[in-house]
């Protein structure tokens, strides 16, 4: 066995029972990991119509067969469950070290069943599994929890995936943070974990993922590391968010709830500004040479900044000072990616970089998705502007664009479901349903998931992704076989491997004689299983649609008509071997993908 251990850990939290499943090589070759494994278990274990926040939902942590191999980009894992935001297929991907550590501990996936009556955390020390009490950790922010777990288990190299107070309070867009600065952010997986009263999963692995052909893998790893200047320099120097000025010039930047397309203050908050003003260093995910993760550090006062420079950074970094003395931004929580700079910044009309970094830090500490949170705020602010939400509704809290300090306060209110935060914690679509008054017109959700910060009116390549991703408003183009596959084998999208090299990597790690066609089928299988789950939960063609906002024109881009959208949807259904009218996978497709048994559970 190479690339996988043939060991899937099942944990039932009701009675703290654990068992191991050994599904065999064919399973891993068929599903790969990530979405494929998640969709398989959701169809198998979650009853139709189950409450996403009830004990019948299952929560799956699924790295891929490549995750944990010694190779840049091999630090990815996915988390899946039925989503409390979309009531459909929920899944989110994360980087960092946790997924690789899980593999090194000898596990291919974790399936969490049921719910615990009291807070617990899971401790996986290679093959030893322990469900431990977490009452003392409940209510604490992620930084405190990681510190406490590492101290009580006595090993600083333990990796922790966990929820923050927002997940405990079932904020529908709560995330699962790992390594403090990486998150499985989308589709509310943190709320599912919170509903199970599972505070954290701590992992320590002392093994190494077995690789079939070390020289071939090493050659690919060396190649990608040698292309830094040519292929990865932007990510290495800035991380994401270095092209925001370009987006704005092209008229495709989300501004004031996706209304304007451009802002003349973008340069104050893009990744270039981050580097110049608040960044202290870059870090990496597991085994990666690119190092695209920003770390920002801001102190309230000059003296503290100078002390940190001398003691923490030994003179190698400049620590920023909030010119208004308001916020300290803790470097343990990393720094804002493009999505966060846009969702917590430009789309809310903000050009206050320190406040944006503070909101981002709070989201990581409290455990919330910055995209859904930012987009929910943008929706609420537009409603407030139009008088659909009033001071009476908000308990006197103003919801105004351009109010940076207001946003920082709202992040905390939402995480703790206090005042207006309780409504906004439902996510924009549920909140709009609750207040009505025509507020649905200002949503930017697909299937209930707030769309990411890439405007499909500006970027044709995003249209199919938003319309057809099984998770809703997702920008990662997982609908395509290339990106879809990377999710399933556990390979980062930011590395410059082409499809041939991805195949080489998969072959080198697993030793499987995989053909390009088989690889495409693996991605196709994952997407088709996710589609089957959504169909079973009552979704259909009517849900493969962009919200009304995107029918409106931007100053530089036309709106997308219903006809344009329908055409993309029909073409995609046809391409996938699904019925061109309904999007139901045909019997022939199910047979070709070998998933008739999974499909039978979707009926």
């Amino acid at each position, binding site marked *: 066995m190479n690339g996988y251990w043939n060991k899937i850990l099942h944990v039932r939290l009701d009675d703290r029972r654990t068992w191991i499943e050994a599904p065999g090589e064919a399973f891993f070759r068929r599903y790969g990991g990530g979405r494929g494994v998640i969709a398989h278990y959701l169809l198998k274990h979650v009853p139709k119509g189950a409450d996403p926040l009830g004990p019948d939902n299952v929560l799956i942590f699924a790295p891929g067969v490549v995750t944990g191999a010694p190779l840049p980009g091999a630090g990815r894992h996915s988390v899946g469950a039925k989503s409390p935001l979309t009531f459909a297929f929920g899944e989110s991907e994360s980087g960092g070290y946790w997924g690789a550590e899980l593999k090194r501990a000898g596990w291919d996936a974790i399936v969490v069943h049921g719910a615990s009556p009291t807070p617990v955390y899971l401790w996986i020390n290679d093959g030893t599994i322990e469900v431990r009490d977490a009452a003392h950790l409940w209510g604490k922010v992620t930084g405190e929890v990681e510190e406490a777990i590492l101290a009580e288990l006595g090993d600083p190299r333990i990796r922790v995936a966990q929820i923050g107070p927002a997940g405990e309070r079932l904020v529908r867009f709560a995330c699962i943070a790992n390594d403090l600065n990486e998150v499985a952010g989308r589709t509310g997986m943190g709320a599912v974990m919170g509903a199970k009263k599972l505070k954290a999963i701590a992992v320590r692995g002392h093994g190494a993922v077995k690789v079939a052909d070390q020289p071939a893998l090493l050659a690919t790893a060396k190649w990608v590391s040698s292309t830094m200047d040519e292929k990865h320099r932007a990510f290495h*120097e800035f991380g994401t968010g270095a*092209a925001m*000025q370009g*987006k704005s010039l092209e008229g495709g930047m989300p501004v004031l709830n996706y209304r304007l397309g451009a802002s003349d203050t973008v340069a104050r908050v893009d990744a270039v500004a981050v580097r110049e003003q608040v960044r202290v260093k870059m870090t990496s995910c597991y085994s990666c040479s690119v190092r695209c993760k920003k770390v920002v550090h801001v102190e309230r006062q000059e003296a503290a900044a100078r002390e940190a420079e001398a003691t923490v950074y030994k003179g190698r970094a400049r620590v920023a000072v909030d010119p208004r003395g308001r916020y300290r931004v803790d470097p343990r929580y990393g720094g804002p*990616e*493009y999505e966060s700079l846009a969702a917590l910044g430009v789309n809310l009309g903000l050009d206050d970089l320190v406040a944006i970094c503070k909101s981002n830090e709070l989201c990581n500490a409290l455990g919330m998705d910055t995209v859904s949170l930012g987009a929910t705020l943008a929706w609420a602010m537009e409603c407030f502007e139009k008088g659909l939400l009033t001071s009476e509704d908000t308990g006197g809290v103003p919801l105004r664009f351009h109010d940076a300090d207001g946003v920082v306060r709202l992040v905390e209110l939402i995480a703790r479901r206090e005042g207006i935060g309780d409504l906004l914690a439902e996510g924009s679509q549920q909140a709009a349903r609750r207040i009505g008054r025509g507020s649905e017109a200002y949503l930017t959700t697909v299937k209930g998931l707030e769309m990411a910060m890439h405007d499909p009116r500006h970027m044709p390549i995003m249209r199919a992704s938003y319309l057809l991703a099984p998770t809703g408003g997702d920008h990662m183009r997982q609908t395509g076989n290339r990106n879809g596959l990377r999710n399933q084998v556990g390979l980062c999208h930011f590395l410059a491997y082409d499809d041939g090299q991805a195949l080489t990597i998969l072959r080198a790690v697993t030793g499987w004689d995989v053909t390009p066609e088989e690889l495409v089928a693996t991605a196709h299988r994952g997407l088709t299983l996710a589609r089957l789950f959504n169909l079973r939960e009552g979704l259909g063609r009517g849900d493969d649609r962009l919200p009304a906002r995107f029918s409106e024109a931007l100053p530089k881009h036309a709106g997308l008509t219903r006809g344009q959208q329908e055409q993309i949807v029909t073409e995609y259904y046809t391409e996938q071997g699904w019925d061109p009218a309904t999007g139901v996978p045909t019997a022939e497709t199910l047979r070709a993908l070998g998933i008739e048994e999974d499909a039978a559970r979707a009926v």
Partner: protein
Amino acid sequence: MRTITVSVTLFADLRRYLPRGAEGPQRYTLPDGATLADLLRTIGVPPDAELTAAVDGELAAQDATLRDGAEVLLLSPMEGG
């Protein structure tokens, strides 16, 4: 021959075309009447490179004529995060 001087800021991975060790906006001198394409050639950016160019704050096509003192931004499209 009359010449013009333009100021060019390179963003993201286009910065690999900066002269070694250089930081910040760079000045380039070109013949009067030079276009954006001429400027890219002078910098060493391949003609088929994926980029967004702005001249004096507005999007510009490759055949746009540059004025003396123009401020040029060259950005590469990126996504994700």
